[in-house]
């Protein structure tokens, strides 16, 4: 009962023949080796597994692999281009917005999704979008600052 799933993964058209009911998070990690996407809870309440699906930040542990048929998936590994870090990644580094770093890919993907939907979020909007993305180490206030900085940076870049 395998099924051929075609989708775009980190900018490349790809296909895989798998049991369509498998969890997207595990398929990304195990079949594609994209281990930047982390497991934290498995039920959609921590955000460690966040990816972009058609530019929306979603929790890959709550998706089946066939949910991405003909859609566009970006994981943390696909966020940078040609070795150049995404502004959100850079801002996380510059603001030291991490400790153990385990929640970091999910935080960055969530933030990247937010900035696509809302390039100039207020502090309140950032908090709202990040609300239940969990960080046990307590890097929160720096994560908020990093997202503010990345937003500004991206705005500068988009202006000619």
């Amino acid at each position, binding site marked *: 009962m395998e099924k051929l799933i075609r989708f775009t993964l980190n900018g490349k058209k790809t296909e895989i023949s798998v049991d369509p009911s498998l969890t997207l998070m*595990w398929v990304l*990690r195990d079949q594609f*080796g994209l281990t930047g996407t982390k497991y*934290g809870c*498995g039920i959609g309440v921590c955000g460690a597994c966040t990816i972009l699906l058609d530019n929306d930040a979603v929790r890959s542990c709550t998706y089946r692999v066939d949910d991405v048929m003909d859609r566009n998936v970006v994981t943390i590994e696909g966020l940078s281009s040609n070795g150049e870090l995404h502004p959100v990644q850079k801002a996380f580094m510059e603001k030291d917005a991490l400790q153990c*770093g385990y929640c970091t890919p999910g935080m960055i993907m969530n933030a990247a999704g937010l900035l696509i939907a809302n390039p100039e979020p207020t502090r309140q909007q950032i908090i709202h979008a990040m609300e239940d993305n969990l960080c046990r180490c307590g890097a*929160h*206030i720096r994560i908020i600052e990093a997202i503010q900085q990345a937003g500004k940076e991206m705005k500068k870049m988009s202006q000619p």
Partner: protein
Amino acid sequence: MKTQRSRFDLKRRDFFTLLGGGIVVYLSSGNPSELLALPLIQERDIPKDYNAFLTIYEDGTVICHVGKIEMGQGPITSLPQQVADELDVSIESIKMVMGDTETCSYDPGTWGSMTTRSYSNFLRAACAEARAVLIQLAGEHLKISPENLKVKNGMVFDASNPEKKVDYGWLTKGQRIERSMDEKPEVKDHTQFKYVGQSRLHADARIKVSGEAQYTADIPMPGRVYAKILRPPSHQVELLSVDYSETEKMEGVEVVRDGDLIAVLHELPDVAERALSTIKAEYTSDEKEVDDKTIFDYLLNAPAETEEREKAGDLGEGEEQADFIIESEFYDGYKAHAPIEPHTAMAKWEGEKVTIWASVQSPFLMAQDALARELGLELENVRVIAPFLGGGFGGKIYNPQVPEVAKIARLAKKPVLLAYTREEEFFMDYFRTAAVIQIRSGITKKGMITMWDYQHYFVESRGSDTIYNVPNKLTTGYSEKRGSPIHPFSTGAWRAPGNNTNTFARESHIDMMAAKVGVDPVEFRLRNLTDEKMIAVIEALKEKFGYSYMKGPSGRGIGIACGTDAGTWVAVMIEVKVDTETGEVQPIRAVVSQDMGMCVNPQGATLQVEGCVTMGMGYALSEDVEFKGGDVLTSNFDTYQLPLFSQVPEVIDTVILDRQDQPPQGGGEPAIICMGGAIANAIYDACGARVYQMPMTPERVLAGIKKASG
């Protein structure tokens, strides 16, 4: 049991074979037991030699092999600062290899804020010795007496003629050099540092933001399968019968069994999980009745070992001198460690030898040693490698996943990955203990403490001694009797063990006394303190916060707490808003002041403080483990409430007192101890409610408001 050879013999031999050339320096000095922060570790064959290994390659790269692990507290950033300064090399030339029992120096574990305050001293001494050896070698080569040589950035040169020079890389030239100094060189003092004391961003940030950093579950391994273990529904029960005949029929699924350890294997975790759910098992029933509501009465009545400490003066006399006697009783529920990365391990057997990658705070003592003992293996047949850890907080000192995965992989005859699910993580965790604290104290009208009778039930003693100057005092601890466990599940060290609960109780009670005599709680503390360091820390806190006194409850919602932990003096002032309709508490701003002695990386220390404040809000306001007997009802983050973005104060300011001339102290834990007390006192100042139980949930705050107005 087989006798184990001294680790040092083993090391000396194998280390060279493993690493080939380079200069290798080992150090054996100091008292190894200093490195053991946890009294609960029983006597075992701790090696007498503590070794720091350095290898310097021809291109000048310095590899520093340390048994510490990186779980977010930043040794991967702060240790190279110290190595670079002692060796006189550029920090960019240093690479860290950490947490590998085969290539790193022995270390009991990364805990107790010991990396900087204890381990660093060994490492710095080793580097100073390595530098002296290198200068000696350079002197022989250049035919110049070592006193006339200087070093900069790994280059040794003639002080009077800098053209005469040779670099470390050339000196070592890939050859193996084993030498030690008869006279041990001094480590540098703070005025000679170039890197120590300077802020540095995380050295591992680049690979962590890109997703490349590997945690245990991320290590690629061809042919690896996932294991899912059959868990009982509750602690305190035994397996009666099990039937996995249907499970074994599933395609590609394998079931292995070693006694009560029953695991399902499949290359896909989804399939392994499904297969696990088809096992039918019966267990005895759980006899324990206690739950998260009745636990406090239960603890007060449990059989206990009694220990009296801090005895001074006479409590009766202190009572006579007092104008007021204040009594209080505080409660704290069980807390989970809840690192976002659950306990994980992967095992690969090659003949008699097993290699384990595992998320462990203690690759040597609690993983390698423990496993060798449990399976009766020679130490050299167990290699443990701790990649990056996704948080630890004391929760990855014990590593049940390590023997589990080793046994399963041995039976399966293939590499096995065991990554606990979140539900397993909550079930297998050893919680921070629930506790009760009773305090009876006497004060004069002028606000001097005359008597202090402190009784702590089932919480560790760390932080239980009063920091105030009290003439008549006694601390009594009640703890589990050996051999008669009272908790329905395991309990253990949780970031600053004991100190969070003790500081919450002591600092709440201090505020109650200050309120009783109408004295500013900050002034009340200063009046009763003689400890200069604590006084200086509080003065700096006051100033940074811009604190001024208003009679409480002032409605402003400002609270203070102070204490000591891991050699560091710390005080926190926090401002909160309390919604008197809902009982919700919203922290607005926190200021932390600490004297941590010499600070290696101010940026890293600040991050630890912010992490402590944020994590501390969780235990203070929302985290609680619900259970019924041995059945842990809290099983995921939907019911165990970690702090969320909206709950974090907008500003966390950190003041680190300049003490660069003092020995370094701990930084990973101290600030967290004050969070319960500071928040409790801020709630009181906001609305007059005194909350005696953590977490201080909206219901408990509302009850406090009702009581205060009733």
